[in-house]
Protein backbone atom coordinates (compact mmCIF):
# COMPACT_ATOMS: atom_id res chain seq x y z
CA UNK A 1 0.00 0.00 0.00
CA UNK A 2 2.87 2.32 0.83
CA UNK A 3 4.05 4.87 -1.72
CA UNK A 4 1.67 3.81 -4.40
CA UNK A 5 0.60 6.55 -6.76
CA UNK A 6 -3.02 7.70 -6.44
CA UNK A 7 -4.50 7.39 -9.93
CA UNK A 8 -8.11 8.26 -9.12
CA UNK A 9 -9.35 10.58 -6.42
CA UNK A 10 -12.83 11.85 -5.59
CA UNK A 11 -12.96 14.82 -3.21
CA UNK A 12 -16.30 15.75 -1.66
CA UNK A 13 -18.27 14.72 -4.73
CA UNK A 14 -22.02 15.34 -4.60
CA UNK A 15 -24.59 14.70 -7.25
CA UNK A 16 -28.17 15.89 -7.05
CA UNK A 17 -30.79 15.05 -9.64
CA UNK A 18 -34.18 16.65 -10.13
CA UNK A 19 -35.33 20.11 -9.02
CA UNK A 20 -35.11 21.97 -5.69
CA UNK A 21 -38.61 20.90 -4.67
CA UNK A 22 -38.00 17.22 -5.22
CA UNK A 23 -34.25 16.55 -5.28
CA UNK A 24 -32.58 13.13 -5.45
CA UNK A 25 -29.25 13.13 -3.67
CA UNK A 26 -27.49 10.34 -5.53
CA UNK A 27 -24.13 11.15 -3.93
CA UNK A 28 -23.49 13.19 -0.77
CA UNK A 29 -19.93 14.45 -0.45
CA UNK A 30 -18.24 11.22 -1.44
CA UNK A 31 -14.45 11.00 -1.16
CA UNK A 32 -12.31 8.13 -2.38
CA UNK A 33 -8.65 7.53 -3.19
CA UNK A 34 -7.62 4.70 -5.47
CA UNK A 35 -3.92 3.86 -5.86
CA UNK A 36 -2.49 2.03 -8.87
CA UNK A 37 -2.80 -1.80 -8.91
CA UNK A 38 -5.71 -1.77 -6.48
CA UNK A 39 -9.00 -3.56 -7.10
CA UNK A 40 -11.81 -1.67 -5.38
CA UNK A 41 -15.31 -3.07 -5.28
CA UNK A 42 -18.26 -0.78 -4.66
CA UNK A 43 -21.31 -2.50 -3.25
CA UNK A 44 -24.64 -1.24 -2.13
CA UNK A 45 -28.36 -1.52 -2.67
CA UNK A 46 -30.01 -0.69 -5.96
CA UNK A 47 -30.44 3.06 -6.46
CA UNK A 48 -27.65 3.83 -4.00
CA UNK A 49 -25.73 5.90 -6.56
CA UNK A 50 -23.13 3.36 -7.67
CA UNK A 51 -23.53 3.92 -11.42
CA UNK A 52 -23.62 7.65 -10.87
CA UNK A 53 -20.36 7.42 -8.97
CA UNK A 54 -18.72 5.48 -11.82
CA UNK A 55 -20.02 7.95 -14.40
CA UNK A 56 -18.51 10.84 -12.44
CA UNK A 57 -15.23 9.03 -11.79
CA UNK A 58 -15.11 8.19 -15.49
CA UNK A 59 -15.46 11.81 -16.65
CA UNK A 60 -18.84 10.98 -18.22
CA UNK A 61 -20.72 13.29 -15.92
CA UNK A 62 -19.74 16.51 -14.16
CA UNK A 63 -20.75 16.32 -10.48
CA UNK A 64 -23.00 18.94 -8.90
CA UNK A 65 -20.07 19.76 -6.62
CA UNK A 66 -16.68 18.36 -5.64
CA UNK A 67 -13.60 17.43 -7.62
CA UNK A 68 -12.44 14.37 -9.48
CA UNK A 69 -8.71 13.93 -10.09
CA UNK A 70 -7.57 11.39 -12.69
CA UNK A 71 -3.83 10.74 -12.88
CA UNK A 72 -3.16 14.09 -11.20
CA UNK A 73 -5.45 16.03 -13.56
CA UNK A 74 -8.45 17.76 -11.90
CA UNK A 75 -11.41 17.26 -14.25
CA UNK A 76 -13.50 20.28 -13.26
CA UNK A 77 -11.21 22.62 -15.17
CA UNK A 78 -11.41 20.63 -18.42
CA UNK A 79 -13.63 21.35 -21.40
CA UNK A 80 -15.82 18.60 -22.90
CA UNK A 81 -13.38 17.58 -25.60
CA UNK A 82 -10.56 17.38 -23.03
CA UNK A 83 -12.76 15.13 -20.89
CA UNK A 84 -13.24 12.87 -23.92
CA UNK A 85 -9.45 12.79 -24.25
CA UNK A 86 -9.11 11.77 -20.57
CA UNK A 87 -11.60 8.96 -21.14
CA UNK A 88 -9.69 7.86 -24.20
CA UNK A 89 -6.19 7.91 -22.71
CA UNK A 90 -6.58 7.39 -18.97
CA UNK A 91 -9.72 5.37 -18.37
CA UNK A 92 -10.92 1.99 -19.51
CA UNK A 93 -14.60 1.11 -19.31
CA UNK A 94 -16.15 -2.31 -18.87
CA UNK A 95 -19.92 -2.45 -18.86
CA UNK A 96 -22.49 -5.00 -17.81
CA UNK A 97 -23.81 -5.18 -21.37
CA UNK A 98 -20.30 -5.42 -22.91
CA UNK A 99 -21.13 -2.53 -25.27
CA UNK A 100 -18.94 -3.53 -28.16
CA UNK A 101 -19.66 -2.12 -31.61
CA UNK A 102 -21.72 -4.87 -33.20
CA UNK A 103 -20.97 -4.09 -36.81
CA UNK A 104 -17.21 -4.50 -36.37
CA UNK A 105 -15.06 -7.56 -35.84
CA UNK A 106 -13.30 -8.24 -32.54
CA UNK A 107 -9.97 -6.78 -33.61
CA UNK A 108 -11.61 -3.82 -35.37
CA UNK A 109 -13.28 -2.89 -32.08
CA UNK A 110 -9.84 -2.54 -30.54
CA UNK A 111 -8.23 -0.93 -33.58
CA UNK A 112 -10.91 1.77 -33.72
CA UNK A 113 -10.02 2.94 -30.22
CA UNK A 114 -6.30 2.66 -30.94
CA UNK A 115 -6.75 4.72 -34.11
CA UNK A 116 -8.60 7.39 -32.15
CA UNK A 117 -5.59 7.60 -29.84
CA UNK A 118 -3.25 7.85 -32.83
CA UNK A 119 -1.99 4.27 -33.14
CA UNK A 120 -2.65 2.81 -36.57
CA UNK A 121 -1.53 0.10 -38.97
CA UNK A 122 0.79 -2.68 -37.92
CA UNK A 123 1.50 -1.30 -34.46
CA UNK A 124 -2.21 -1.13 -33.72
CA UNK A 125 -2.81 -4.66 -34.96
CA UNK A 126 0.08 -5.99 -32.88
CA UNK A 127 -1.11 -4.22 -29.76
CA UNK A 128 -4.67 -5.45 -30.25
CA UNK A 129 -3.50 -8.98 -30.90
CA UNK A 130 -1.31 -9.02 -27.81
CA UNK A 131 -4.23 -8.00 -25.59
CA UNK A 132 -6.57 -10.50 -27.20
CA UNK A 133 -3.98 -13.17 -26.51
CA UNK A 134 -3.57 -12.13 -22.87
CA UNK A 135 -7.34 -12.31 -22.46
CA UNK A 136 -7.54 -15.64 -24.26
CA UNK A 137 -9.72 -14.54 -27.18
CA UNK A 138 -7.11 -14.17 -29.93
CA UNK A 139 -8.67 -17.10 -31.82
CA UNK A 140 -11.76 -14.91 -32.24
CA UNK A 141 -9.95 -11.86 -33.62
CA UNK A 142 -11.77 -11.77 -36.97
CA UNK A 143 -15.18 -12.86 -35.74
CA UNK A 144 -18.09 -10.47 -35.77
CA UNK A 145 -18.84 -9.41 -32.21
CA UNK A 146 -22.46 -10.53 -32.39
CA UNK A 147 -21.56 -14.22 -32.71
CA UNK A 148 -19.43 -14.28 -29.54
CA UNK A 149 -20.59 -15.72 -26.23
CA UNK A 150 -21.10 -13.40 -23.27
CA UNK A 151 -17.82 -14.45 -21.66
CA UNK A 152 -15.91 -13.86 -24.87
CA UNK A 153 -17.52 -10.47 -25.34
CA UNK A 154 -16.57 -9.37 -21.86
CA UNK A 155 -12.96 -10.42 -22.44
CA UNK A 156 -12.92 -8.44 -25.68
CA UNK A 157 -14.43 -5.50 -23.79
CA UNK A 158 -11.65 -5.73 -21.19
CA UNK A 159 -9.07 -5.89 -24.00
CA UNK A 160 -10.63 -2.79 -25.54
CA UNK A 161 -10.56 -1.03 -22.17
CA UNK A 162 -6.85 -1.77 -21.93
CA UNK A 163 -5.65 -0.75 -25.40
CA UNK A 164 -4.46 2.71 -24.41
CA UNK A 165 -2.87 1.65 -21.08
CA UNK A 166 -5.42 3.36 -18.82
CA UNK A 167 -4.54 4.27 -15.25
CA UNK A 168 -7.89 2.99 -14.05
CA UNK A 169 -10.54 0.60 -15.28
CA UNK A 170 -14.12 1.34 -14.29
CA UNK A 171 -16.46 -1.61 -14.44
CA UNK A 172 -20.20 -1.61 -13.78
CA UNK A 173 -21.50 -5.09 -12.89
CA UNK A 174 -19.13 -6.79 -15.37
CA UNK A 175 -20.19 -10.28 -14.27
CA UNK A 176 -23.93 -9.72 -14.02
CA UNK A 177 -24.65 -10.96 -17.55
CA UNK A 178 -22.37 -13.98 -17.21
CA UNK A 179 -22.71 -17.41 -15.69
CA UNK A 180 -20.56 -18.38 -12.70
CA UNK A 181 -17.67 -19.88 -14.67
CA UNK A 182 -17.40 -16.97 -17.10
CA UNK A 183 -17.89 -14.50 -14.26
CA UNK A 184 -15.02 -16.08 -12.33
CA UNK A 185 -12.81 -15.98 -15.40
CA UNK A 186 -13.58 -12.33 -16.05
CA UNK A 187 -12.85 -11.44 -12.41
CA UNK A 188 -9.58 -13.32 -12.62
CA UNK A 189 -8.69 -11.32 -15.71
CA UNK A 190 -9.49 -8.00 -14.06
CA UNK A 191 -7.45 -8.90 -11.01
CA UNK A 192 -4.55 -9.94 -13.21
CA UNK A 193 -4.79 -6.72 -15.19
CA UNK A 194 -4.55 -4.71 -11.97
CA UNK A 195 -1.75 -6.67 -10.40
CA UNK A 196 0.33 -7.32 -13.56
CA UNK A 197 -0.29 -4.26 -15.69
CA UNK A 198 -0.75 -1.72 -12.94
CA UNK A 199 -4.13 -0.25 -13.81
CA UNK A 200 -6.40 0.27 -10.84
CA UNK A 201 -9.82 -1.37 -11.10
CA UNK A 202 -12.93 0.21 -9.61
CA UNK A 203 -15.86 -2.09 -9.93
CA UNK A 204 -19.51 -1.95 -8.98
CA UNK A 205 -21.12 -5.27 -8.14
CA UNK A 206 -24.04 -6.82 -6.35
CA UNK A 207 -22.36 -10.15 -6.54
CA UNK A 208 -20.65 -11.38 -3.35
CA UNK A 209 -18.71 -13.90 -5.37
CA UNK A 210 -16.48 -11.13 -6.71
CA UNK A 211 -15.21 -10.25 -3.24
CA UNK A 212 -12.27 -12.71 -3.19
CA UNK A 213 -10.78 -10.84 -6.12
CA UNK A 214 -10.82 -7.45 -4.39
CA UNK A 215 -8.22 -5.58 -2.38
CA UNK A 216 -10.76 -3.27 -0.87
CA UNK A 217 -14.54 -3.08 -0.58
CA UNK A 218 -16.55 0.10 -0.11
CA UNK A 219 -20.22 0.30 0.68
CA UNK A 220 -22.43 2.97 -0.88
CA UNK A 221 -25.85 3.63 0.56
CA UNK A 222 -28.01 6.75 0.49
CA UNK A 223 -25.21 8.55 -1.27
CA UNK A 224 -22.72 7.92 1.55
CA UNK A 225 -19.57 5.90 1.07
CA UNK A 226 -17.87 3.85 3.80
CA UNK A 227 -15.16 1.20 3.88
CA UNK A 228 -15.99 -2.41 4.68
CA UNK A 229 -13.61 -5.15 5.55
CA UNK A 230 -13.71 -7.69 2.71
CA UNK A 231 -13.43 -10.39 5.35
CA UNK A 232 -16.53 -9.26 7.21
CA UNK A 233 -18.60 -9.64 4.04
CA UNK A 234 -16.87 -12.73 2.88
CA UNK A 235 -18.13 -15.20 5.43
CA UNK A 236 -17.51 -18.90 5.19
CA UNK A 237 -21.02 -19.52 3.89
CA UNK A 238 -20.92 -16.80 1.28
CA UNK A 239 -20.85 -18.25 -2.20
CA UNK A 240 -17.76 -17.93 -4.36
CA UNK A 241 -17.32 -18.40 -8.08
CA UNK A 242 -15.24 -21.44 -7.25
CA UNK A 243 -17.96 -23.06 -5.14
CA UNK A 244 -20.83 -22.44 -7.52
CA UNK A 245 -19.35 -23.91 -10.65
CA UNK A 246 -21.88 -24.40 -13.39
CA UNK A 247 -21.66 -26.52 -16.50
CA UNK A 248 -19.20 -24.85 -18.81
CA UNK A 249 -20.54 -23.75 -22.20
Amino acid sequence: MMDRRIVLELVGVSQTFGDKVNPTHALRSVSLQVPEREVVIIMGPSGAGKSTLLAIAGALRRPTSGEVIVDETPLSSLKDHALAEVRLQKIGFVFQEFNLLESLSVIQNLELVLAKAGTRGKRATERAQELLRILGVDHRRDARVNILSGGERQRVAIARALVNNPVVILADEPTASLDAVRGGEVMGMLQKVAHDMGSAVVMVSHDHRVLPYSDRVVWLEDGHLEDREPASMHSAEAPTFASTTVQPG
Partner: protein
Amino acid sequence: MTLLAARNLMAEKMRFAFSAAGIGLAVFLITVLLGIFQGWNNKVGGFVSEVDTDIWIARDGTTDFINAASILPGAMGEEMLARDDVAAVYPLIVRPMAFEHDGSKVEVHLIGYDVESGVGGPAKIIKGEGDPSGNEIVIDDVLSKISGVGIGDELESSGMTLTITGIASGGNFAFTQAGFVSEETAAELLGMGDLVTFWLVTLEEGADVSATAADIASTTDGVEVFTSGEFASATRHRILDNVLPILFLIVGLAFIVGIAITSLTIYTATIERAREFGIMKAIGFNNRDLYSLVVMQSVITGAIGFVFGVLLTILLSLFIDAAMPAFVILIRPIDVLFVLLATILMAAAAAIIPARRVGGVDPAIAFKG
Protein backbone atom coordinates in the same frame (compact mmCIF):
# COMPACT_ATOMS: atom_id res chain seq x y z
CA MET B 1 -13.97 5.51 -38.99
CA THR B 2 -14.74 5.03 -42.68
CA LEU B 3 -14.80 1.31 -42.03
CA LEU B 4 -17.25 1.76 -39.18
CA ALA B 5 -19.45 4.00 -41.33
CA ALA B 6 -19.48 1.40 -44.12
CA ARG B 7 -20.14 -1.42 -41.67
CA ASN B 8 -22.97 0.45 -40.00
CA LEU B 9 -24.57 0.96 -43.40
CA MET B 10 -24.11 -2.66 -44.40
CA ALA B 11 -25.67 -3.80 -41.13
CA GLU B 12 -29.01 -2.62 -42.53
CA LYS B 13 -28.72 -3.56 -46.18
CA MET B 14 -32.32 -2.98 -47.16
CA ARG B 15 -32.42 0.46 -45.64
CA PHE B 16 -29.09 1.34 -47.17
CA ALA B 17 -30.28 0.17 -50.60
CA PHE B 18 -33.47 2.14 -50.14
CA SER B 19 -31.76 5.40 -49.32
CA ALA B 20 -29.09 4.97 -52.00
CA ALA B 21 -31.88 4.31 -54.49
CA GLY B 22 -33.68 7.43 -53.26
CA ILE B 23 -30.63 9.57 -53.86
CA GLY B 24 -30.01 7.71 -57.10
CA LEU B 25 -33.46 8.60 -58.38
CA ALA B 26 -33.00 12.21 -57.40
CA VAL B 27 -29.62 12.25 -59.15
CA PHE B 28 -31.22 10.60 -62.16
CA LEU B 29 -34.00 13.18 -62.35
CA ILE B 30 -31.62 16.09 -61.94
CA THR B 31 -29.18 14.73 -64.54
CA VAL B 32 -31.87 13.94 -67.09
CA LEU B 33 -33.49 17.33 -66.74
CA LEU B 34 -30.15 19.08 -66.99
CA GLY B 35 -29.36 16.92 -70.01
CA ILE B 36 -32.62 17.83 -71.70
CA PHE B 37 -32.05 21.46 -70.89
CA GLN B 38 -28.51 21.37 -72.28
CA GLY B 39 -29.68 19.39 -75.28
CA TRP B 40 -32.29 21.96 -76.16
CA ASN B 41 -30.09 24.88 -75.34
CA ASN B 42 -27.48 23.48 -77.66
CA LYS B 43 -29.80 22.50 -80.51
CA VAL B 44 -32.08 25.46 -80.45
CA GLY B 45 -29.57 28.23 -80.15
CA GLY B 46 -26.71 26.26 -81.63
CA PHE B 47 -27.69 26.65 -85.25
CA VAL B 48 -28.06 30.42 -85.00
CA SER B 49 -24.68 30.90 -83.34
CA GLU B 50 -23.04 28.73 -86.00
CA VAL B 51 -24.23 30.97 -88.86
CA ASP B 52 -21.20 32.94 -90.03
CA THR B 53 -22.55 36.49 -89.88
CA ASP B 54 -22.34 39.56 -87.65
CA ILE B 55 -25.84 40.95 -87.83
CA TRP B 56 -29.34 39.57 -88.39
CA ILE B 57 -31.94 41.94 -89.84
CA ALA B 58 -35.57 40.92 -89.48
CA ARG B 59 -39.01 42.45 -89.81
CA ASP B 60 -40.16 44.56 -86.85
CA GLY B 61 -41.70 42.34 -84.15
CA THR B 62 -39.50 39.33 -84.85
CA THR B 63 -38.26 37.83 -81.63
CA ASP B 64 -36.24 34.80 -82.65
CA PHE B 65 -35.22 32.36 -85.35
CA ILE B 66 -37.88 29.71 -84.88
CA ASN B 67 -40.99 31.84 -84.71
CA ALA B 68 -39.94 34.19 -87.50
CA ALA B 69 -42.87 35.51 -89.51
CA SER B 70 -40.49 38.07 -90.91
CA ILE B 71 -40.70 39.39 -94.46
CA LEU B 72 -38.14 41.86 -95.82
CA PRO B 73 -37.87 43.44 -99.28
CA GLY B 74 -35.16 42.14 -101.59
CA ALA B 75 -33.96 45.67 -102.24
CA MET B 76 -32.83 45.97 -98.62
CA GLY B 77 -29.82 43.82 -99.45
CA GLU B 78 -28.52 46.43 -101.90
CA GLU B 79 -29.17 49.20 -99.35
CA MET B 80 -27.10 47.42 -96.75
CA LEU B 81 -24.30 46.62 -99.12
CA ALA B 82 -24.10 50.32 -99.96
CA ARG B 83 -22.96 51.06 -96.39
CA ASP B 84 -19.25 51.63 -95.90
CA ASP B 85 -19.02 49.35 -92.88
CA VAL B 86 -20.74 46.38 -94.56
CA ALA B 87 -18.58 43.77 -96.29
CA ALA B 88 -21.23 41.34 -97.51
CA VAL B 89 -24.96 40.68 -97.34
CA TYR B 90 -26.73 37.31 -97.66
CA PRO B 91 -30.44 36.49 -97.92
CA LEU B 92 -32.04 33.82 -95.75
CA ILE B 93 -35.54 32.43 -96.11
CA VAL B 94 -36.89 30.48 -93.14
CA ARG B 95 -40.38 29.02 -93.02
CA PRO B 96 -41.88 25.82 -91.62
CA MET B 97 -43.54 23.82 -94.32
CA ALA B 98 -45.03 20.42 -95.02
CA PHE B 99 -43.86 18.12 -97.82
CA GLU B 100 -45.25 14.83 -98.93
CA HIS B 101 -43.33 11.62 -99.31
CA ASP B 102 -45.10 8.45 -100.46
CA GLY B 103 -48.39 9.91 -99.26
CA SER B 104 -47.18 10.78 -95.77
CA LYS B 105 -46.46 14.22 -94.42
CA VAL B 106 -42.91 15.38 -93.69
CA GLU B 107 -42.63 18.58 -91.66
CA VAL B 108 -39.54 20.58 -92.53
CA HIS B 109 -38.20 23.81 -91.16
CA LEU B 110 -37.24 25.05 -94.62
CA ILE B 111 -34.11 27.18 -94.83
CA GLY B 112 -33.26 28.80 -98.14
CA TYR B 113 -29.71 30.13 -98.13
CA ASP B 114 -27.06 31.54 -100.39
CA VAL B 115 -25.46 28.31 -101.57
CA GLU B 116 -22.47 30.05 -103.13
CA SER B 117 -21.25 31.49 -99.80
CA GLY B 118 -22.80 28.77 -97.66
CA VAL B 119 -23.87 31.35 -95.04
CA GLY B 120 -26.95 30.08 -93.22
CA GLY B 121 -26.49 26.63 -94.71
CA PRO B 122 -26.01 23.25 -93.02
CA ALA B 123 -23.34 23.27 -90.32
CA LYS B 124 -21.97 19.86 -91.20
CA ILE B 125 -22.73 17.33 -93.93
CA ILE B 126 -22.61 13.81 -92.54
CA LYS B 127 -23.82 11.92 -95.63
CA GLY B 128 -24.13 12.76 -99.33
CA GLU B 129 -23.57 16.23 -100.75
CA GLY B 130 -24.04 19.77 -99.41
CA ASP B 131 -24.70 22.73 -101.71
CA PRO B 132 -28.22 21.83 -102.91
CA SER B 133 -29.01 23.10 -106.39
CA GLY B 134 -32.39 23.76 -108.09
CA ASN B 135 -34.44 20.74 -107.05
CA GLU B 136 -32.29 19.32 -104.30
CA ILE B 137 -32.68 19.43 -100.53
CA VAL B 138 -30.32 18.64 -97.65
CA ILE B 139 -32.16 17.50 -94.51
CA ASP B 140 -31.14 17.19 -90.89
CA ASP B 141 -30.24 13.67 -89.78
CA VAL B 142 -32.77 13.79 -86.94
CA LEU B 143 -35.47 14.58 -89.49
CA SER B 144 -34.19 11.68 -91.57
CA LYS B 145 -34.53 9.35 -88.58
CA ILE B 146 -37.95 10.63 -87.55
CA SER B 147 -39.51 10.58 -91.02
CA GLY B 148 -37.61 7.64 -92.38
CA VAL B 149 -36.52 9.50 -95.50
CA GLY B 150 -32.97 9.44 -96.79
CA ILE B 151 -30.73 10.21 -99.71
CA GLY B 152 -32.45 9.72 -103.06
CA ASP B 153 -35.96 10.07 -101.60
CA GLU B 154 -38.26 12.71 -103.04
CA LEU B 155 -40.26 15.36 -101.20
CA GLU B 156 -43.20 17.09 -102.89
CA SER B 157 -44.91 20.38 -102.26
CA SER B 158 -46.67 23.06 -104.32
CA GLY B 159 -46.16 21.02 -107.47
CA MET B 160 -42.40 20.90 -106.94
CA THR B 161 -40.38 17.77 -106.32
CA LEU B 162 -37.13 17.96 -104.36
CA THR B 163 -34.62 15.14 -104.16
CA ILE B 164 -32.73 14.58 -100.93
CA THR B 165 -29.03 14.76 -101.76
CA GLY B 166 -27.46 15.22 -98.37
CA ILE B 167 -27.90 14.63 -94.65
CA ALA B 168 -26.67 17.34 -92.29
CA SER B 169 -26.21 17.59 -88.54
CA GLY B 170 -26.82 20.60 -86.31
CA GLY B 171 -30.24 21.49 -87.70
CA ASN B 172 -32.36 19.96 -84.94
CA PHE B 173 -34.47 22.56 -83.12
CA ALA B 174 -36.07 20.03 -80.75
CA PHE B 175 -39.59 20.70 -82.02
CA THR B 176 -38.72 20.99 -85.73
CA GLN B 177 -35.76 20.08 -87.96
CA ALA B 178 -34.15 21.90 -90.81
CA GLY B 179 -34.25 21.19 -94.55
CA PHE B 180 -31.80 23.27 -96.58
CA VAL B 181 -32.44 24.44 -100.12
CA SER B 182 -31.02 27.22 -102.24
CA GLU B 183 -32.52 30.65 -101.65
CA GLU B 184 -34.01 30.65 -105.16
CA THR B 185 -35.70 27.29 -104.61
CA ALA B 186 -37.15 28.46 -101.29
CA ALA B 187 -38.49 31.63 -102.90
CA GLU B 188 -40.14 29.58 -105.63
CA LEU B 189 -41.62 27.04 -103.23
CA LEU B 190 -43.07 29.72 -101.00
CA GLY B 191 -43.97 32.14 -103.78
CA MET B 192 -41.94 34.87 -102.13
CA GLY B 193 -40.71 36.63 -105.25
CA ASP B 194 -37.69 38.62 -104.16
CA LEU B 195 -38.81 38.79 -100.52
CA VAL B 196 -36.63 37.20 -97.81
CA THR B 197 -36.98 36.38 -94.12
CA PHE B 198 -33.66 37.70 -92.89
CA TRP B 199 -30.81 39.68 -94.25
CA LEU B 200 -27.50 38.48 -92.86
CA VAL B 201 -24.91 41.23 -92.75
CA THR B 202 -21.16 40.71 -92.45
CA LEU B 203 -19.13 43.76 -91.48
CA GLU B 204 -15.80 45.08 -92.62
CA GLU B 205 -12.80 44.19 -90.49
CA GLY B 206 -12.69 46.39 -87.39
CA ALA B 207 -16.27 47.67 -87.56
CA ASP B 208 -18.16 47.89 -84.24
CA VAL B 209 -20.93 45.30 -84.45
CA SER B 210 -23.22 46.73 -81.75
CA ALA B 211 -22.86 50.29 -82.96
CA THR B 212 -23.52 49.29 -86.57
CA ALA B 213 -26.54 47.23 -85.54
CA ALA B 214 -27.93 50.20 -83.64
CA ASP B 215 -27.24 52.49 -86.58
CA ILE B 216 -29.01 50.16 -89.05
CA ALA B 217 -31.97 49.93 -86.69
CA SER B 218 -32.32 53.71 -86.46
CA THR B 219 -31.86 54.43 -90.15
CA THR B 220 -34.06 51.65 -91.54
CA ASP B 221 -37.83 51.56 -91.17
CA GLY B 222 -39.72 48.54 -89.89
CA VAL B 223 -36.82 46.31 -88.94
CA GLU B 224 -35.49 44.58 -85.90
CA VAL B 225 -31.68 44.33 -85.84
CA PHE B 226 -29.80 41.77 -83.78
CA THR B 227 -26.15 41.02 -83.37
CA SER B 228 -25.45 37.35 -83.97
CA GLY B 229 -24.99 36.70 -80.25
CA GLU B 230 -28.21 38.52 -79.34
CA PHE B 231 -30.18 36.56 -81.88
CA ALA B 232 -28.83 33.23 -80.72
CA SER B 233 -29.63 33.98 -77.09
CA ALA B 234 -33.06 35.41 -77.98
CA THR B 235 -33.79 32.16 -79.80
CA ARG B 236 -32.63 30.11 -76.85
CA HIS B 237 -34.72 32.14 -74.44
CA ARG B 238 -37.79 32.02 -76.59
CA ILE B 239 -37.78 28.24 -76.46
CA LEU B 240 -36.36 27.66 -73.03
CA ASP B 241 -38.16 30.33 -71.01
CA ASN B 242 -41.30 28.26 -71.21
CA VAL B 243 -39.71 25.10 -69.91
CA LEU B 244 -37.15 26.56 -67.54
CA PRO B 245 -39.45 27.26 -64.55
CA ILE B 246 -40.90 23.76 -64.75
CA LEU B 247 -37.41 22.35 -65.06
CA PHE B 248 -36.22 24.21 -61.99
CA LEU B 249 -39.27 23.16 -60.05
CA ILE B 250 -38.68 19.49 -60.83
CA VAL B 251 -34.96 19.74 -60.10
CA GLY B 252 -35.84 21.43 -56.79
CA LEU B 253 -38.35 18.72 -55.94
CA ALA B 254 -35.88 15.98 -56.83
CA PHE B 255 -33.37 17.67 -54.55
CA ILE B 256 -35.82 17.84 -51.66
CA VAL B 257 -36.96 14.25 -52.15
CA GLY B 258 -33.32 13.13 -52.17
CA ILE B 259 -32.61 15.00 -48.95
CA ALA B 260 -35.80 13.77 -47.31
CA ILE B 261 -35.22 10.09 -48.09
CA THR B 262 -31.59 10.18 -47.04
CA SER B 263 -32.31 12.26 -43.95
CA LEU B 264 -35.01 9.91 -42.86
CA THR B 265 -32.94 6.76 -43.25
CA ILE B 266 -29.80 8.26 -41.72
CA TYR B 267 -31.91 9.66 -38.90
CA THR B 268 -33.53 6.31 -38.21
CA ALA B 269 -30.14 4.61 -38.34
CA THR B 270 -28.78 7.20 -35.92
CA ILE B 271 -31.62 6.84 -33.44
CA GLU B 272 -31.29 3.07 -33.54
CA ARG B 273 -27.61 3.39 -32.80
CA ALA B 274 -27.98 6.06 -30.13
CA ARG B 275 -26.65 3.58 -27.61
CA GLU B 276 -23.59 2.82 -29.71
CA PHE B 277 -22.95 6.52 -30.11
CA GLY B 278 -23.19 6.87 -26.33
CA ILE B 279 -20.69 4.03 -25.91
CA MET B 280 -18.31 5.63 -28.38
CA LYS B 281 -18.52 8.88 -26.46
CA ALA B 282 -17.93 7.03 -23.21
CA ILE B 283 -14.76 5.38 -24.46
CA GLY B 284 -13.25 8.64 -25.68
CA PHE B 285 -14.75 9.71 -28.99
CA ASN B 286 -15.89 13.31 -29.09
CA ASN B 287 -18.88 14.85 -30.80
CA ARG B 288 -16.82 15.82 -33.80
CA ASP B 289 -15.88 12.17 -34.41
CA LEU B 290 -19.52 11.19 -34.25
CA TYR B 291 -20.63 13.99 -36.55
CA SER B 292 -18.10 12.88 -39.09
CA LEU B 293 -19.28 9.30 -38.70
CA VAL B 294 -22.87 10.33 -39.45
CA VAL B 295 -21.79 12.58 -42.33
CA MET B 296 -19.62 9.79 -43.72
CA GLN B 297 -22.54 7.39 -43.66
CA SER B 298 -24.59 9.94 -45.50
CA VAL B 299 -21.85 10.70 -48.01
CA ILE B 300 -21.25 7.01 -48.75
CA THR B 301 -24.98 6.63 -49.34
CA GLY B 302 -24.86 9.70 -51.57
CA ALA B 303 -21.85 8.47 -53.53
CA ILE B 304 -23.46 5.13 -54.29
CA GLY B 305 -26.72 6.85 -55.13
CA PHE B 306 -24.81 9.19 -57.44
CA VAL B 307 -23.17 6.36 -59.37
CA PHE B 308 -26.50 4.57 -59.59
CA GLY B 309 -28.29 7.71 -60.80
CA VAL B 310 -25.69 8.60 -63.41
CA LEU B 311 -25.62 5.05 -64.77
CA LEU B 312 -29.40 5.10 -64.99
CA THR B 313 -29.24 8.39 -66.87
CA ILE B 314 -26.67 7.11 -69.35
CA LEU B 315 -28.76 4.01 -69.98
CA LEU B 316 -31.87 6.07 -70.49
CA SER B 317 -30.17 8.54 -72.80
CA LEU B 318 -28.94 5.68 -74.99
CA PHE B 319 -32.47 4.38 -75.13
CA ILE B 320 -33.92 7.82 -75.88
CA ASP B 321 -31.35 8.41 -78.60
CA ALA B 322 -32.54 5.31 -80.36
CA ALA B 323 -36.25 5.71 -79.73
CA MET B 324 -36.73 9.46 -79.96
CA PRO B 325 -33.96 11.10 -81.98
CA ALA B 326 -35.38 14.62 -81.68
CA PHE B 327 -35.28 14.45 -77.92
CA VAL B 328 -31.61 14.99 -77.39
CA ILE B 329 -30.17 14.58 -73.91
CA LEU B 330 -26.80 16.21 -73.74
CA ILE B 331 -24.78 15.21 -70.67
CA ARG B 332 -21.69 17.34 -70.34
CA PRO B 333 -18.93 16.46 -67.85
CA ILE B 334 -19.42 19.86 -66.23
CA ASP B 335 -23.09 19.04 -65.56
CA VAL B 336 -22.15 15.69 -64.06
CA LEU B 337 -19.77 17.60 -61.82
CA PHE B 338 -22.61 19.92 -60.89
CA VAL B 339 -24.84 16.96 -60.03
CA LEU B 340 -22.00 15.49 -57.97
CA LEU B 341 -21.77 18.73 -56.01
CA ALA B 342 -25.55 18.70 -55.63
CA THR B 343 -25.36 15.13 -54.31
CA ILE B 344 -22.68 16.01 -51.79
CA LEU B 345 -24.85 18.92 -50.72
CA MET B 346 -27.84 16.62 -50.42
CA ALA B 347 -25.87 14.12 -48.36
CA ALA B 348 -24.47 16.83 -46.09
CA ALA B 349 -27.89 18.43 -45.62
CA ALA B 350 -29.38 15.03 -44.88
CA ALA B 351 -26.82 14.53 -42.11
CA ILE B 352 -27.52 17.81 -40.28
CA ILE B 353 -30.49 16.72 -38.17
CA PRO B 354 -29.12 13.23 -37.35
CA ALA B 355 -25.75 14.75 -36.43
CA ARG B 356 -27.44 17.17 -34.04
CA ARG B 357 -29.21 14.26 -32.48
CA VAL B 358 -25.90 12.50 -31.94
CA GLY B 359 -24.50 15.56 -30.19
CA GLY B 360 -27.20 15.22 -27.55
CA VAL B 361 -26.61 11.56 -26.71
CA ASP B 362 -25.62 11.09 -23.04
CA PRO B 363 -22.50 8.90 -22.80
CA ALA B 364 -23.70 7.67 -19.37
CA ILE B 365 -26.22 5.65 -21.39
CA ALA B 366 -23.44 3.05 -21.62
CA PHE B 367 -23.88 2.24 -17.92
CA LYS B 368 -27.55 1.44 -18.33
CA GLY B 369 -28.28 -2.24 -18.73
